[in-house]
């Protein structure tokens, strides 16, 4: 990237001041004054490829079955060994004896690794795929002698085939010294509760950690003076909310292939959202230099956060090191449900004060989060419970947000699409509905009076960071239009009641917000090079988890370079080949990785126009690039990208490849906004309810590919619908999981789905690539509160715990009557 581009602040973020010190915004200078780079705001009629429904980059290989996911690489490794893992069948115990002799005697068994095997590191680490050092304690070991949940890995076997590996596991016997488990997270901090972790065994502890009371971390942040505001207010309301475990139900179970290559380096093909973090974490764990590890991400069968985690790579690598053979570990659906990762169950208290005119004066939120047996993402997920939904009301002057993250002997909770925001929105947006009704205000009008607007300074996003850098000016906000257009689409103002007396219909609204990347903790990089024929190869670290980001980056690059998206070959992600990227999480890929692609393409364009100027005998300033040609606006002459490509590679006197590269990082994370509406009919006799329609109106800034953005919204709502109506795991009194299959879990099928309507409200985010913000997580936030509000609207009863079942509705109706 050129020096000039750097100084003009093309990220819309802080620019360098004269002194060379970073000129971080402190609220004194209006960040809207940051210069938006020329050409970032393209009028709809001037767009070539952005906002067009460009065909998904990998669509054709997917529909022909040729797309290759990790397990499809099996046939490329004829000497591949298969893995099976013996996992703890008790919730809390010390392992006292492991007898592996029966397994080791078996034909076809090549390695049986226990926690005491020399090749298995005894180092502690975290599975959380986050920046360095991770805001997560290092509390995991590859194989475990102290087990803290049913599903903890104890022994790993590599064998000629999967059945032999599984048979070998059945021949291993383990003896336990069982301990009392902690199964109710509300009692985890009770001084009498059994202690799950020894503090001395954990590294990289997080603020507020107190392992004697099973607390992984805690936080408390305040703006203004909440107590005084409550004391002086005439109208204070406090409510309590509860949310359950949710499975990612990720279609492709976690799968990893590891091998040592001919250069004596370790090469992993893995279903991961975070190839670079995984490389660094494996290096730390196994004490192998980073340069000797290569992580390749093929197509992956989605992530939803489940693969923002180094879950099975360590076991696979250890087995490869033990056998010096390529090894695959393909997890089972049963392992997915109890031994991988889930959404955190939470208990949340909301308290607000409102003045006589319906203005919010104070908000207080307290969260208790169950991180399960280990703590990956524990603190940061709980932080998002407040810092994502509370900024919907950024003008509230007194805000307090506190949380405790506690351990239990239940499955590990970690990153899941929404990352705490779905739990937070359930509390905030159901609570706001209660406040409105308490004030005799229409819930929509109450929201309109208080919700975020363009130009607001949001300090709440920084409430835990406690610094100036994390405050943000809201530079794009279409919330008002989202509310209005959603209201129209759902028919809020002309709702017809069913004729039957026992049926009651109602509509609920929830406002939603998310971020675009992690403020101040992201880096995306991209490299683009032109071939002789005027086509390009774009290498980008940003990870396509199936969402379509490879398509999105091809549209951004082609918009800059004036070529067809089909002329851009996208390569992501391989740590040997693609530039660095933090990975696909926190709704960062369009905003962060996409911006790095835009900057890299602009860098290449500068070189392209240089060649154009030379060949057209023109000044670069008079040139434009469009439709595969560089045009001289002065002379009217053109030269094709192909002609430039051949000249650049094979010219007589001067030769240089047209290339561009750039990194992108920023302290800002602009929120996308949305309005979720639910239309429900409740049967007063049975408590059964039917959702008639879901409407979601979204402000994503500029949607680079509208149909793919709609797909994100529809799929996100589907996960949100499940959290509202059906999620949750069941356990026995001993902590044995009872939810181990799709059937037992009950993920929604096509026939369970209400009709959905999606509305894209375009705004322009000056700091985003061509005005884009994020989309992926926003729609996971709204259905639980909107459904609770719709049932309240229909029947007058309030449902405060998820999932909302007919039994719970019936019980609430009975206690009302």
């Amino acid at each position: 990237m050129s020096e000039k581009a750097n100084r003009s602040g093309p990220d819309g973020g802080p620019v360098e001041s004269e002194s060379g010190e970073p000129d971080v915004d402190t609220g004194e200078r209006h960040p809207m004054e940051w210069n938006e780079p020329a050409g970032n705001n393209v009028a709809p009629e001037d767009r070539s490829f952005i906002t067009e429904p460009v065909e998904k980059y990998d669509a054709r290989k997917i529909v022909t079955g040729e797309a290759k996911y990790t397990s499809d690489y099996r046939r490329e490794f004829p000497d591949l060994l298969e893995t099976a893992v013996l996992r703890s069948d008790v919730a809390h115990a010390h392992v006292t004896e492991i007898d592996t002799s029966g397994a080791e005697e078996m034909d076809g068994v090549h390695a049986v690794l226990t926690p005491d095997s020399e090749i298995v590191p005894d180092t502690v680490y975290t599975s959380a795929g986050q920046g360095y050092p991770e805001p997560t304690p290092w509390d995991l070991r590859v194989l475990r002698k102290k087990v803290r949940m049913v599903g903890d890995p104890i022994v790993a076997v590599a064998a000629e085939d999967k059945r032999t590996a599984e048979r070998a596991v059945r021949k291993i016997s383990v003896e336990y010294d069982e301990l009392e488990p902690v199964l109710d997270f509300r009692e985890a901090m009770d001084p009498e509760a059994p202690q799950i972790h020894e503090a001395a065994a954990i590294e990289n502890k997080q603020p507020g950690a107190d392992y004697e009371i099973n607390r992984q971390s805690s936080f408390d942040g305040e703006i203004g003076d909440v107590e005084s505001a409550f004391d002086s207010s005439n109208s204070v309301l406090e409510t309590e909310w509860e949310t359950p475990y949710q499975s990612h139900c990720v279609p492709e179970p976690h799968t990893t292939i590891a091998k040592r290559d001919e250069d004596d380096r370790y090469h992993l093909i893995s279903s991961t959202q975070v190839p670079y973090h995984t490389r660094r974490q494996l290096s730390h764990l196994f004490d192998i230099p980073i340069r000797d590890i290569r992580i390749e991400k093929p197509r992956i069968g989605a992530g939803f956060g489940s693969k923002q985690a180094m879950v099975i790579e360590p076991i696979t690598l250890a087995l490869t090191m033990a056998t010096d053979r390529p090894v695959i570990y393909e997890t089972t659906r049963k392992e997915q449900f109890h031994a991988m990762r889930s959404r955190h169950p939470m208990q949340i208290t909301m308290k607000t004060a409102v003045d006589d005119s319906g203005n919010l004066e104070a908000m207080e939120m307290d969260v208790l989060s169950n991180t399960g047996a280990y703590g990956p993402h524990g603190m940061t997920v709980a932080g998002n419970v407040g810092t994502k939904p509370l900024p919907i009301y950024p003008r509230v002057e007194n805000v307090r947000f506190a949380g405790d993250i506690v351990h239990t002997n239940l499955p590990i909770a970690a990153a899941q699409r929404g990352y705490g925001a779905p739990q937070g929105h359930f509390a905030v947006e159901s609570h706001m509905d209660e406040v409105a009704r308490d004030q005799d205000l229409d819930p929509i009008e109450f929201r309109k009076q208080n919700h975020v607007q363009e130009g607001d300074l949001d300090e709440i996003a920084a409430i835990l960071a406690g610094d100036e850098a994390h405050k943000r000016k809201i530079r794009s906000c279409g919330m008002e239009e989202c509310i209005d257009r959603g209201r129209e689409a759902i028919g809020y103002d002309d709702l017809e009641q069913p004729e039957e007396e026992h049926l009651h219909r109602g509509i609920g609204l929830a406002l939603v917000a998310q971020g675009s990347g992690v403020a101040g903790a992201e880096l995306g990089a991209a490299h683009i090079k032109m071939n002789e024929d005027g086509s390009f190869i774009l290498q980008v670290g940003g990870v396509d988890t199936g969402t379509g980001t490879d398509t999105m980056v091809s549209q951004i690059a082609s918009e800059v370079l004036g070529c067809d998206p089909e002329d851009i070959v996208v390569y992501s992600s391989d740590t040997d080949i693609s530039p660095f990227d933090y990975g696909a999480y926190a709704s960062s890929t369009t905003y962060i990785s996409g911006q790095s692609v835009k900057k890299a393409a602009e860098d290449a364009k500068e070189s392209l126009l240089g060649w154009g100027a030379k060949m057209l005998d023109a000044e670069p300033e008079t040139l434009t690039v469009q439709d595969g040609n560089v045009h001289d606006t002065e002379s009217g002459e053109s030269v094709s990208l192909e002609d430039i490509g051949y000249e650049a590679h094979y010219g007589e006197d001067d030769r240089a490849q047209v290339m561009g590269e750039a990194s992108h990082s920023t302290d800002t994370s602009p929120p996308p906004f949305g309005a979720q509406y639910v239309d429900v009919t409740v049967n007063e006799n049975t408590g059964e309810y039917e959702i008639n329609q879901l409407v979601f109106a979204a402000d994503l800034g500029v949607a680079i590919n509208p149909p793919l953005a709609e797909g994100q919204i529809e799929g996100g709502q589907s996960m949100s619908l499940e959290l509202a109506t059906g999620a949750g795991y069941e356990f026995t009194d001993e902590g044995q999981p009872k939810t181990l299959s799709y059937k037992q879990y009950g993920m929604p099928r096509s026939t369970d789905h209400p009709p959905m309507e999606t509305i894209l409200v375009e705004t322009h985010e000056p700091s985003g690539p061509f005005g884009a913000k994020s989309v992926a997580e926003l729609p996971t936030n709204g259905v639980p509160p909107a459904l609770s509000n719709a049932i309240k609207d229909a029947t007058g009863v309030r449902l405060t715990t998820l999932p909302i079942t007919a039994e719970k509705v019936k019980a609430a109706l009975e206690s009302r009557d």
Partner: protein
Amino acid sequence: MDLELTINGRQQTLDAEPADSLLDVLRDNGYTGAKRGCDTGDCGYCTVIVDDDPVQSCVTPAKKADGATVETIESLGEQEDLHPVQAAFVDNSALQCGFCIPGMIMNTTAALRENPDPTEAEAREAIEPVLCRCTGHKKPVEAVLDAADRIDSAEELAHDGGHAAAELDDKDGESQ
């Protein structure tokens, strides 16, 4: 044990273990379009058409399929010459991660042979066996309905000596 199967029109004798599922045999022999998502017959990603019926190959014992005719996703179109069902999924943006898509397409293909003109509710039922986590099933349902229209048009084309070709070409033009 030896297994006689006609896979995508080709008669083959394949080696199988007694405990193998049909999915194991297919994937071991390079038919990797069918995906393994659960091994319990719940997710539908492994769906193939056996003797005209869509079956979940992960819970179909290989020996039970001996002598059967099997159609997998590999039997449909190619990237530059897609089958109408495949084209409908592409053009309706009805796919994201793609792991469930071979199952979606095989269920749709079998359903449309039985019922070429499904209602919206019947289209939902056609893909009911497949647990798609990415799309919320909305665009896939639209793709099933669109696929039915495309097959209809293709049949008209076959019966009218190609006069409807121009119309079909227009439809293809929408794919960008």
